[in-house]
């Protein structure tokens, strides 16, 4: 018993340093193959991490005394993967409304902030990050303007610690598509609903533009004017109208994408991101022409029309990329956002160059969200947010061995790994009592 106990204590002591790797120490990763994404691939390289930042990266780097050294011989370092569409932290159990915080009441709630409702203890968070996904956009749903999506890192004890520097107002663009297999509305009803919704959107935007003008006038000479009435939704849209905050437009069918392109042109919108794009390939040249960046996915999905080739959803990202659209790939999932590399991998299997697929889950989303000074590639000065793999991260046979988020070495465990450890060789097995 005493022996077991001391064994347990020493085991804990052994694990402890990696588990609670303090961010303020110096960590040196040596002998690594480094896929920087933006500056090529470095063989046998060294990365020095200090205070959560990459301070040196390359070959022929002196290793400082007293640093914690991680030998990565035979292994590859990649920047952390970024999923551009999840409900991480907002939804715990899909079917239980008590555990869903992604939707507010009403059609117009752009003032709602997803970041507020992110549960840092969501069970899916460790499940996702041990697969190398370090950063996700978490997106509210419901209504036309469901709120503001937030980019979060998958480590932190408060939402603010997790916040990765981007928030964008979400617009679910009026849709002419069916909402799924069980949407049995007639063609006319679908069309009518879309037209009405578009009118509502335009009315809302007219109000938002008016609010912006009143507010600007007031701000220019507060002493002359009356403070504009407090309208929370308009306050939230004001920054979008001014182009100071991104508008993330969720849009999927070809027809709706074209109508969204017309809409942003008519409204002179400059800071727009599209998300979804199930039929993006049909109008890819138009999107490219408009220069709107796109968060595409899920890649693993069914073609939108029965007449489409079986692999159109897989090929969508490649076709958009070929047309010159800047793409990021999203899983559009929460519990299985961990499959992001497989969405990118399927896009690669069906025509997207592997390098472009990697960019679509690293530097491209970082640039689209304006956080490429911190995330998305391995460069000196960026956050030490990366993972270490023993092979191609798109392959299921590859193991992710380490994950760092802003210098913090994440424990490589989750509910899924813990259950594996407990139940692979369950004890007691078939006996009713543990006699060992």
């Amino acid at each position, binding site marked *: 018993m005493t022996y077991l106990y001391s064994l347990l204590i020493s085991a804990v002591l052994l694990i402890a340093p990696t588990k609670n790797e303090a961010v303020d120490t110096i960590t040196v990763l040596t002998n690594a193959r480094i896929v920087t994404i933006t500056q090529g691939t470095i063989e046998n390289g060294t990365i020095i991490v200090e205070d959560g930042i990459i301070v040196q990266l390359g070959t022929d780097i002196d290793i400082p005394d007293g640093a914690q050294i991680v030998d990565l011989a035979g292994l590859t370092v990649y920047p952390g993967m970024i999923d551009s569409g999840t409900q991480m932290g907002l939804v715990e159990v899909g079917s239980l409304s008590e555990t869903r915080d992604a939707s507010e009441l009403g059609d117009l709630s752009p003032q709602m902030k997803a970041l507020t409702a992110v549960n840092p203890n969501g069970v899916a968070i460790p499940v996702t990050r041990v697969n190398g996904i370090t950063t996700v956009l978490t997106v509210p749903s419901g209504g036309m303007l469901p709120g503001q999506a937030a980019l979060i890192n998958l480590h932190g004890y408060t939402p603010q610690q997790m916040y990765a520097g981007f928030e964008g107002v979400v617009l679910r663009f009026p849709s002419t598509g*069916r909402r799924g297999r069980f949407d049995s509305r007639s063609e006319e009803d679908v069309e009518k609903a879309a037209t009405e919704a578009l009118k509502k959107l335009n009315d809302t935007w007219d109000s938002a533009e008016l609010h912006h003008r009143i507010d600007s006038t007031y701000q220019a000479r507060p002493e002359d004017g009356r403070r504009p009435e407090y309208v929370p939704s308009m306050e939230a849209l004001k920054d979008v109208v001014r182009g100071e905050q991104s508008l993330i437009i969720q849009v999927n069918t070809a027809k709706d994408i074209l109508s969204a392109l017309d809409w942003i042109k008519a409204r002179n919108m400059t800071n727009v991101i599209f998300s979804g794009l199930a039929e993006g390939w049909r109008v890819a040249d138009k999107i490219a022409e408009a220069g709107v960046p796109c968060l595409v996915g899920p890649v693993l999905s069914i073609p939108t029309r029965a007449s489409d080739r079986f692999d159109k959803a897989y090929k969508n990202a490649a076709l958009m990329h070929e047309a010159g659209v800047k793409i990021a790939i999203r899983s559009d999932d929460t519990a299985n956002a961990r499959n992001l590399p497989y969405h990118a991998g399927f896009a690669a299997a069906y025509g997207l160059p592997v390098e472009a697929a990697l960019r679509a889950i690293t530097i491209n989303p970082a640039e689209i969200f304006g956080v490429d000074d911190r995330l998305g590639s391995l460069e000196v000065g960026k956050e030490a947010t990366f993972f270490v793999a023993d092979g191609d991260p798109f392959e299921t046979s590859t193991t992710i061995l380490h994950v760092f988020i802003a210098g913090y070495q994440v424990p490589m465990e989750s509910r899924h790994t813990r259950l594996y450890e407990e139940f692979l060789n369950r004890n007691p097995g078939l006996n009713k009592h543990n006699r060992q």
Partner: protein
Amino acid sequence: MKFKLLFLSAAFIFASNCLAQVPTGDVLVRGGTVLTVTNGTLENTDVLILNGIITEIGENLSAPQGVSVVDAVGMYVMPGIIDAHSHIGISNVNESSAPVTAQVSVGDVLNPYSIAIYRALAGGVTSSHVMHGSANVIGGQNETIKHRWGLLDPDELRMADAPRTIKFALGENPTRVHGQGSNKRPASRMGVEYVLRETFAKAQRYQEAWAQYEEEAKSNPRAISPAYNGQLEVMSDILTGDILIHCHSYRADEILMLLDVLGDFGVNQITFQHVNEGFKIAPELAEFGAGASIFADWWAYKFEVYYSTAYNAAILTRNGVLTSINSDSGELNRHLYHEAAKSQKYGGLSDTEALSLITINPAKQLGIADRIGSIEVGKEGDLAIFDRHPLSIYAVNQKTIVDGITYFDIERDADDMRLSVDPESPIETTVLHSHDDTHQCLHEGALDLYDFLESN
């Protein structure tokens, strides 16, 4: 040798009998890396299929006259993938009107026009176990089909002489549909056990009554037969082992409950479907000889799958449970090879173990392992030919062969593969598939109720 020939000709006769109504083909698949699943990997090997049956596997086989040759040099030839849980190709999923609907069968509503069949073929899937939904404790009977795309008689989709199977369901779906939805038992997992025991007991009485009658009728021509009961006929066939149970289930406790019930009624063949908590009771499943047909990694979409692990396949396999990976989805069924490959990430299964999850293991669970599920002489000529090893993310299926006939060929794949187009439809409907949509088991319980919950 003589014996082998005899066996082969017997196999031919058997096969030609059961495939009598459907066309079969001849083809020589030349020079591929053959992943037999049951006999290792054979490099640079030919597979000869005649009349829909694999007749020879070896190097440098010659094609008999008139037999077409498929060049598979540099490619990987694997057994046609078998999806042990699917709802494609049928026009109804649930008869949810009562907690027990054993008398109905999805085999009565096969729809050969469903584009989902072609999409599954494109992913290398040659057979699907098309199941009734999970609204009922004892649901309807399922149908094992082959993906013979383009044959328009629904009967031609059936895999003739495949064992009969039936759907059972435990947990949240039947309790929600009947208990919450209709104020009928079961409203709890206690009620689920009660419905099972009551129905099996009635079936036993029914069997006894008929046995008694048949005995009496020998001496008494005026003996009166018991009333015919379609539902109890089916239940009796379960008791006699003529119908295999495939039970929708998630939690360890409810699975153990059903094992107890089956033990009490002398039923010893069952495959649990989904069985997300199977890993917790792997030793009990192995001891019973129960199979597990699981998702690679789905979890957290409802409470009963909250305590899941993607290592389920590995834990079950290592504990000796016959395990398969299924789709239950018109999306996942197009990349089951990728779903199986996840068992390498989560638990390090070997290539053969991973491939077994979608070939020979589901074949065993469906009672058709003597006919499909591996590449062996005498088995039916169902193959998928990939350009890379099918467990690689970059693998793309090139051809899918069923009964020796190529039903999917990526080189001859037109944009529009529909078999019928509604001339009255002005424009084609665009359907945006949400995740919940493709997770059919979420909906198969009670569509209306689920939609109601969603919209409220």
